[in-house]
């Protein structure tokens, strides 16, 4: 067999191997996409219900006296009793009162406060119901189960059906989830507190980690002499990137809280801890970005008589900026999803108020998810999924910002 023939005979095998290799690649991508799809389907399927919330329509008169004493819940109870006069027994009444959320009184107060003219008028108000009724309306409670296995009794079921038929019980858009903080009652619990907490922490983290990381990288890459000390520093930075995040939490607890006496559970401390954790990522990515700037640019600037700082500021940094931003965003995304270090510095507390500043107590999105996932109420499951969705939206937004920033930096030249 001639050489040409031998080569030709092997060709088929070589092309086959190439096709297989490509198929494996496509397979891997499809598998990954499949997992992503399953995850998104499950999370969205479970979390989308939060967009709606059940409300009950109650007709009542807000008396000036009740508004004065703050007995809003009493007004609601009266209205409920009026609607279902057959509930006389103590146990029945309790079940009846259980229909409305414990936060219904606040909802009523808010409506009246916004419009004080309502005092003295008899009219209908839409008020939030309890999580059990909400779950029933969202078909999350199986009516066919025996009464003892259900969280809603047959008696309650009958009343609810009456209410549904009369149109006094319906699903409406759940504004509260996006505008309020955490709550013990799932129907009142919102994500805003955690989202603001996360945003504040990340802001602190970015403010600290980005300049520090970039300056460190620039110094190590451009100015520091290459000797044993800088080697040691480099090794340490690389190791820090691999340190479990909870260790940074411990460090924060020991140093920021105990030594410096900074406020516990504050986004300031959370951000500082996250900054510690993010720094190595930013430094490593920034150094890689600096290294990838072609030496010809450096030499060109130097040969024109630019001082080292001018070389870095005018040429190296602008060229490396897209890479640095990418590294920073990756670090930030990592920080956004981080729970462990925040647990250590007390950002795991149950906080109802939406934080107004970095020194106030706050919690963060991943911590909120962790807390809700742990809660026994069925309605919290729905909120957990919804919170995860919010977290994902956050991440997508951050990445989008990164892409846009990078594009703009690149377009400048």
């Amino acid at each position: 067999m001639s050489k040409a023939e031998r080569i030709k005979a092997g060709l088929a095998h070589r092309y086959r191997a190439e096709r297989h290799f490509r198929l494996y690649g496509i397979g891997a991508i499809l598998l990954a996409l499949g997992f992503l799809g399953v995850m998104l389907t499950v999370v969205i399927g479970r979390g989308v219900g939060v967009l709606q919330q059940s409300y009950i329509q109650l007709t009542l008169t807000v008396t000036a006296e009740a508004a004065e004493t703050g007995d809003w819940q009493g007004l609601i109870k009266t209205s409920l009793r009026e609607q279902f006069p057959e509930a006389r027994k103590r146990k029945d009444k309790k079940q009846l009162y259980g229909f409305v959320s414990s936060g219904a009184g606040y909802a009523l107060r808010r409506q009246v406060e916004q419009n004080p003219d309502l005092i003295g008028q008899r009219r209908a108000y839409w008020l939030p119901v309890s999580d059990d009724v909400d779950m029933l309306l969202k078909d999350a409670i199986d009516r066919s189960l025996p009464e003892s296995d259900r969280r809603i009794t047959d008696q309650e079921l009958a009343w609810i059906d009456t209410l549904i038929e009369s149109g006094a019980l319906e699903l409406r858009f759940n504004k509260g989830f996006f505008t309020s903080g955490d709550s013990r009652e799932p129907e009142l619990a919102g994500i805003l507190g955690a989202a603001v907490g996360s945003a504040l922490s990340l802001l602190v983290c970015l403010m600290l980690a980005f300049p520090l990381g970039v300056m460190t990288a620039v110094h190590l890459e451009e100015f520091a002499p290459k000797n044993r000390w800088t080697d040691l520093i480099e090794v340490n930075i690389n190791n820090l990137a691999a340190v479990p995040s909870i260790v940074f939490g411990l460090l924060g607890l020991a140093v920021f809280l105990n030594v410096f006496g900074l406020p516990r559970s504050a986004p300031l401390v959370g951000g500082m801890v996250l900054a510690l954790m993010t720094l190595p990522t930013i430094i490593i990515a920034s150094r890689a970005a600096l290294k990838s700037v072609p030496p010809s640019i450096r030499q060109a600037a130097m040969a024109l008589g630019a001082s080292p700082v001018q070389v870095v500021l005018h040429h190296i940094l602008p060229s490396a900026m897209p890479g640095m931003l990418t590294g920073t965003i990756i670090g930030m995304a990592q920080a956004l999803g981080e729970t462990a270090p925040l647990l250590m510095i007390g950002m795991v507390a149950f906080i109802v108020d939406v934080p107004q500043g970095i020194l106030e107590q706050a919690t963060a999105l991943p911590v909120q998810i962790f807390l809700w996932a742990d809660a026994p109420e069925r309605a919290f499951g729905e909120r957990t999924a919804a919170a995860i969705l919010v977290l994902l939206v956050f991440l997508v937004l951050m990445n989008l910002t990164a892409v846009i920033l990078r594009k703009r930096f690149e377009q400048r030249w």
Partner: protein
Amino acid sequence: MIQIATVSNDPIHKQPDAAPAGAAKITAQGVNVYYGDKQALKDISIDVPAHQVTALIGPSGCGKSTFLRCINRMNDVIDGCCMEGEIRLDGEDIYARGIDVVHLRARVGMVFQKPNPFPKSIYDNVAYGPKIHGLAASRAEMDEIVLHSLEKAGLIDEVRDRLDAPGTGLSGGQQQRLCIARAIAVEPEVILMDEPCSALDPIATARIEELIDELKQNYTIVMVTHSMQQAARVSQKTAFFHMGELVEQGTTEDIFTRPADDRTKAYITGRIG
């Protein structure tokens, strides 16, 4: 339209170097350069005549680029690079204490092997040097420097209506001429060229060579080249480096018609030395 002022007694356009042609502009005495343990240059002594093109030739790794980079102290930044001996520019030791490297590099410009315009506009590329050295007092003055430099580099007609376009969008030869414009915008006395045409096609090379020939009236040019033909075409003086030694130097005519040293002969005639 910005008018290009005629050359007058304003400081920007004065003849940058009044030394008579042929007098030694740069004098190197006993230059040794080490990269760590490796000696890259061995006892180099050479005079670079003013207003002439001096070509440094020799096989790869012979030290010609290293020597070139000694003249504007670009080797300073290389770790483990150490230099002995002295190099004088107009009689002044450029390695002496108190010599400012930034100032030296404003006097000794450099053009590199691969065209390396900054990722900025054509205008900004040329304006960068004058800007950092504070050579232009006003925007109008800067415009003038930029246009004048582009004109001297023979690029103005090709880029006049797109000064805001990125310099990296030009062709290879245009980029190299942009780099030359950028170097002469600082009005240096000496221009070092490290294989300025090795990445260019013959036409672009010819244009650069023509440009070099014109530039030597105002500047002293030292050029490293791999192409002996190019050295023969553009230079007046040629120095042959081999394994870190300066084997032979002389007028280009002598080196290419009757070299004295066997290593030079073997190199320029393409023999196995």
